[in-house]
């Protein structure tokens, strides 16, 4: 079963360690502009949301590509671009509803998350568990467990009173 990235915006503290490890492992530089994951800071930087490719089942980037340069990696499930076929037109970038595709101005080529061949650096690097790499059919379960943990913590005073 394919895994993909599961984002918990409420756990993100905005440190941007994920961006650093992503760009370093993909481009040999520390450059957020070339990272496949970026933390978007909202409401004057109070709220932080990591954003990356959603690895859509029906991927608009794939449909938009005029040169059939984008296809799914069967092993990892990641949408990937074949560099030799990419003409740098950025149609995929316009088509993506999430900003999951970026444009590398030094290489004149589009890029998106490749799940690091199945070992995503961002998930490994995040100290707070805001990015997890989880089987797609268990992602709902993970979110449920998280919600239940919060619920149980809220109930704790009542439970200890009952004891």
């Amino acid at each position, binding site marked *: 079963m394919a895994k993909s990235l599961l984002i918990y915006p409420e756990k993100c*503290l905005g440190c941007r360690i994920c961006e650093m490890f992503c760009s370093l492992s993909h481009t040999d*530089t520390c*450059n957020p502009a070339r990272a496949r994951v970026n933390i978007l800071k909202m409401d004057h930087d109070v709220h932080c949301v990591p954003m990356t490719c959603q690895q859509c089942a029906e991927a608009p980037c794939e449909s938009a590509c005029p040169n059939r340069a984008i296809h799914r990696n069967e092993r990892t499930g990641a949408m990937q671009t074949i560099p030799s076929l990419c003409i740098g037109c950025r149609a995929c970038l316009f088509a993506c509803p999430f900003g999951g595709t970026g444009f590398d101005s030094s290489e004149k080529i589009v890029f998106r998350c490749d799940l690091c061949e199945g070992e995503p650096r961002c998930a490994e690097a995040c100290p707070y568990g805001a990015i997890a790499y989880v089987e797609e059919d268990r992602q709902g379960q993970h979110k449920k467990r998280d919600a239940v943990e919060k619920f149980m913590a809220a109930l704790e005073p009542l439970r200890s009173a009952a004891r």
Partner: protein
Amino acid sequence: MALKTSEGLILKVNLTDRTVRREGTGPYADLFVGGRAVGSKILYDDLRPGVDPLGPSNILVFNNGLLSGTAAPSSGRVDVSAKSPMNGFHGVTNFGGFWGAELRHAGYTHLALSGTGNAPVYLFIENDHVEVRDARHLWGLDTYETAVRLRRELRDQDVQVLSIGPAGENQVRFAGIATNLGNVAGRTGMGAVMGSKKLKAIAVRGTRGVDLADPKGFLDLARNTHKLLRESPAFEENNRVKPLTDSMFNKLYEGMLAFGNYEDGRWEKFSRLEPEKFFARHQVRRAGCFACPMQCMHLVDVPASGYGIAFCSPFMSFLGTVWNDDLTAMWEAIILANRYGLDVIETGGTIAFLMELYQKGVIQASHTDGIPMEKGNRSAILQMIHKIAHREGVGEILAQGSLRAAEAFGDKALDSLVSVKGHFPHGYQFTAFEGASLMQAIGGADPFPTYGTGVEIRLSMPGPKEKLLAEAKALFGSEDAYLPGNYSLAKVRMVIDAEHRSRIPDILGVCIYVIDGYNKSSTDYHFFYDRLADLYEAATGRSMTRQGLFAAAERLVNLERCLDAREGLNRKADRLPERFFRPFPGGVNKDKALNMEMMENMKDAYYRERGWSVDTGLPMPEKLQALGLADVVAPV
């Protein structure tokens, strides 16, 4: 300009004629490595001695290190330095957030500003594009409003903004510089220097990134270093168990903090505060700086006062220092100070000073525009913050710093003044800790003494001691190095080591708190410096060792001492307030006080150990020679 991995790039902007120059840091690298050390050398070379700190000839330098803006942990700290308007000596303060990394991603390790904009301006930096722009429409806005307005105007929410508030504009001598989130580079008045240059803000956007000499090696090292940090007890303590501020309130306060204007070592009401409830109710999340796994600050939002972030100093400055036991009022004061752009430590200290003078009858309400400065008076605290920032009424006097204010209030006021080199000291019980006191006497507002000498405080409290004492013996020859209650040579050596340890992170662009936190829990006291040397090597391709970093730190201490010597500093300035030599009336350390004669002897030993003259307290020519500084720094 193509960026090299082996060196940083200095961006020099003259605000008067709006010229821009770029220079590599290569010529500095062998002796000074980078960061604050290069910044101090820029000041040594470019700043004429004797200039008015609030005139156009002062130079304001922002210093990134060669690890800044990389995957190295905590690579978002920036030093900012200039001649300080508080005392005319070298001023330096360090801030976090995301601005420094953005500047590095734009290609620069240093930004050196000279001249004056004459009319209000802001500096816009986007990679190669550097422009001095009109800021008349921003003048008068607070630091929060400035960041919001600039981001909207530039149509880029990712722009990182540093700005001054009304305090900096009005050249309050202890005004600071604020980041987007409202954390302030507070100490030594760097915001006043910015205000004197009519520079309202520095907006930076960088998409060039940082190239590395050995990217694969750097990736491995950075991964391992982050892993080490995350598996350390320090990480556990910070991130999983309790926020830092809890430990300040609950565990340490009684043997560590000084209350009011250094009036007591204990304050009953402080122990009854309920910070847990405050944070449970108002904390949005923890917060911190670029690429840092520790995230040691608190992002708090209190209705009516608003959101902001704070570390430990602001909490103490607007609680124990000003005898306030209302956490909501504390938050209101913090937000006000952050919006106006004031140093909280100096602001709290100035108010505490007024409160003591009022209680002693040295001043009356008539001296403070009709406001009675009773201890803990909430309204008085808030009104004074406003008056200081706007130099309104008594604020005109207070804005000059407590030393000048005391002179204005008369001789009796001078008896109550607590000041080290013109700065209100850190809020610790120096009466009981000789090493911290020596560090405070020499360093003034910098470095934070407990980063080096916190062991004294820990050893004065219950808890395991064996490991620390064995370490003291192994490193400095005697357990006395760490134990409070002595003035030994071992302790002097520990202080010198601590001064060096605390400057290495500033040289590389990382955070002392993270490094020190890690070292504390390590079996090898200096362990983390090997890691940093390796990271530096992989980043730059220049070889580096732990010893090399310590040598650069020692050069930096000597260079900055020479910088101060040009401005007239000598041994006489290394003086502690009289109050440190009298015991506090309460608290666990109430029987303890520093001994003046022993302290002077300890200073003799310190100067000798450093190779400085015992008479002048300044580096001897032979010492400068030995450090390789003979040709770059004039003997004093």
